[in-house]
């Protein structure tokens, strides 16, 4: 079981002292939070992607590469990478690069985003958001698995004999999570490819999450990737923890009441009752988090939102301290004890390499010499037979990894 934190990268005025951090301060604080997450024993750090103020995270791979360089064990990922407005070719390239630099300590979560104006900024149309996401991912999936891709679709210029570089580390594509709140097509796509499914979980009653995860699990089994209970599920959560319950509530309440997404709406108590929000003592956080598996089954990754709505950097560090010392160790023990032994862990680079190669050495692609035209032909790598660019298959590298 992996535990981690995810941030939307909002730069929000602290409603208690009235101060809005600068972009520089908030970016530094986020890096520090990620480093602290590893120090206190968490496994994963995830950052969102936005292209408008008051958010800073327009370039997730740059941030994550820096964090990977400052850490030893932490898995860096996104929450989410916009599969709609990003060119899948750029996603393939940037995240493969991140995979190399982090030595495989990364994966990626894809989502559609919820900001309507962002689509035209990148030449896309939000009314086509869902087909765009689905088509883009079909292409991304191939770009990481086939050295040479011929492709034609509706939303992007065609590709002829295109090679995305660098090839994934050890020729093993990064593991992909698909994030969705209520779109069965996204769950279906995750299940079809045997990818992970991540339910944001935090703004919605548990019934939404339960239904979507159940559908994904059934379809994962249908497509032959394993039994339903072996499907790879991640959940969001939202916590504020203090030594005792009353302090947690009184400290968090001003941030909750003014929070950009749900502030001035439901009360802290109502939101706690209706959503996964947990505000209280370590034991209260533990109890609430342990209840999640009762409606989604045993799952592999739990991410907590702990740094939004203007919470100051110091409070975030304190949260991490308490999560790491008093919450996560208990959750780890309790969840391991309850877990069905047939339920696998979340895939890591090591496990995917093992699944693909067993004890053999992984493929290390070495390019052929530049032919001078900057256009790669049928076989740009030394270990692959030259074939005509018929777009069919490129041999070993085209095989799918079934984890």
């Amino acid at each position: 079981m992996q535990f981690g934190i995810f941030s939307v990268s909002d730069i929000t005025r602290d409603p208690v002292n009235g101060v809005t951090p600068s972009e520089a301060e908030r970016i530094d604080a986020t890096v520090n939070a990620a480093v602290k997450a590893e120090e206190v024993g968490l496994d994963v750090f995830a950052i969102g992607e936005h292209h408008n103020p008051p958010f800073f995270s327009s370039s997730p791979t740059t941030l994550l590469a820096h964090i990977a360089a400052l850490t030893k064990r932490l898995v860096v990922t996104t929450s989410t990478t916009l599969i709609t407005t990003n060119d899948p070719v750029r996603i393939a390239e940037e995240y493969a690069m991140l995979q190399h630099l982090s030595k495989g300590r990364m994966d990626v979560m894809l989502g559609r985003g919820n900001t309507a104006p962002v689509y035209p900024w990148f030449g896309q149309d939000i009314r086509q958001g869902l087909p765009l996401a689905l088509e883009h991912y079909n292409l991304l999936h191939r770009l990481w698995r086939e050295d040479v891709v011929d492709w034609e679709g509706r939303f992007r210029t065609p590709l002829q004999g295109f090679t995305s570089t660098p090839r994934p580390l050890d020729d093993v594509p990064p593991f992909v999570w698909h994030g969705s709140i209520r779109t069965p097509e996204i769950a279906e796509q995750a299940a079809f490819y045997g990818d992970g499914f991540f339910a944001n979980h935090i703004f919605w009653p548990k019934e939404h999450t339960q239904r979507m995860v159940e559908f994904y699990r059934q379809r994962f089994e249908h497509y032959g990737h394993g039994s339903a209970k072996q499907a790879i599920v991640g959940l969001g959560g939202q916590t504020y923890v203090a030594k005792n319950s009353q302090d947690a509530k009184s400290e968090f309440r001003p941030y909750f009441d003014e929070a950009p997404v749900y502030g001035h709406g439901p009360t802290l108590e109502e939101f706690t009752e209706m959503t996964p929000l947990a505000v209280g003592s370590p034991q209260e956080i533990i109890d609430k988090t342990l209840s999640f598996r009762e409606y989604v089954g045993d799952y592999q990754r739990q991410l907590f939102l702990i740094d939004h709505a203007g919470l100051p950097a110091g409070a975030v560090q304190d949260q991490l301290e308490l999560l790491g010392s008093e919450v996560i160790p208990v959750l780890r023990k309790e969840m391991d004890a309850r877990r069905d032994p047939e339920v696998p862990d979340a895939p890591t680079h090591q496990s995917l390499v093992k699944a693909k190669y067993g004890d053999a050495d992984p493929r290390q692609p070495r390019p052929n010499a530049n032919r001078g035209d900057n256009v790669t032909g049928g076989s740009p790598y030394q270990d692959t037979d030259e074939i005509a660019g018929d777009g069919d298959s490129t041999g070993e590298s085209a095989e799918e990894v079934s984890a």
Partner: protein
Amino acid sequence: MSEQTTHSAFRLVVVNAGISDPSSTKLLGDRVAQSARDIAEQRGHTVAVTTVDLRELLPELSGALASGLLGQRFTAAVDALREADGVIASTPVYKAGPSGLFSSFFQVLDNDLLIAKPIALGATAGTARHALVVDEQMRSLFAYLRALSVPTSVFASTEDWQDKSLGTRIDRAAFELVLLMESGFERSVRGESWRQYQHEYGSAGGTELSIDLNSDLMRLATGGSLAPENAGITGIDEG
């Protein structure tokens, strides 16, 4: 035409946006309900009336509007409407429009919750100059929701309460409502044409859970390609 022989058990829901209790708005809704019950019973049906007093939902309204989260009372109201065979909606007129509470309540509901349901519309006001609020504002709201408004609008200004013709309009609207419930229109639309309307996963008050695995989008989700540019994509059309 053969005589109506089917005897039904109708569930009627009164949505009352009156703020005080008693209020003329609640009274109007109740009178339409009572009349509909009498008419239906004369025709051999039974009627169970549930009243949703929107004032009781006020504490949950801010959360519902701000985040879409429905509290217990809201959920109970949605459940009642989902199961209703007929609806009576009654609101006071404030500032020349249906009350904010009334409009907000229906704006929070799923778009497909009221499809094809017969609904009688009523409004109260301090002056007869608001008489067209029902026809010009409330009807368009329920048209958007694809509910089936009865032809007679029931508007009651202060002076109407002493006029026998209000009772006549109430009975007329109630009779129309009963006929539409009897017709089985909602059942047929939902039974035979439900898929022709746009739905979201989990809409219709949490009951719209069927997933069409044969849509263009599902084929695209599973590695397929889209039809050429000029062909429509089923399942994502507006409306």
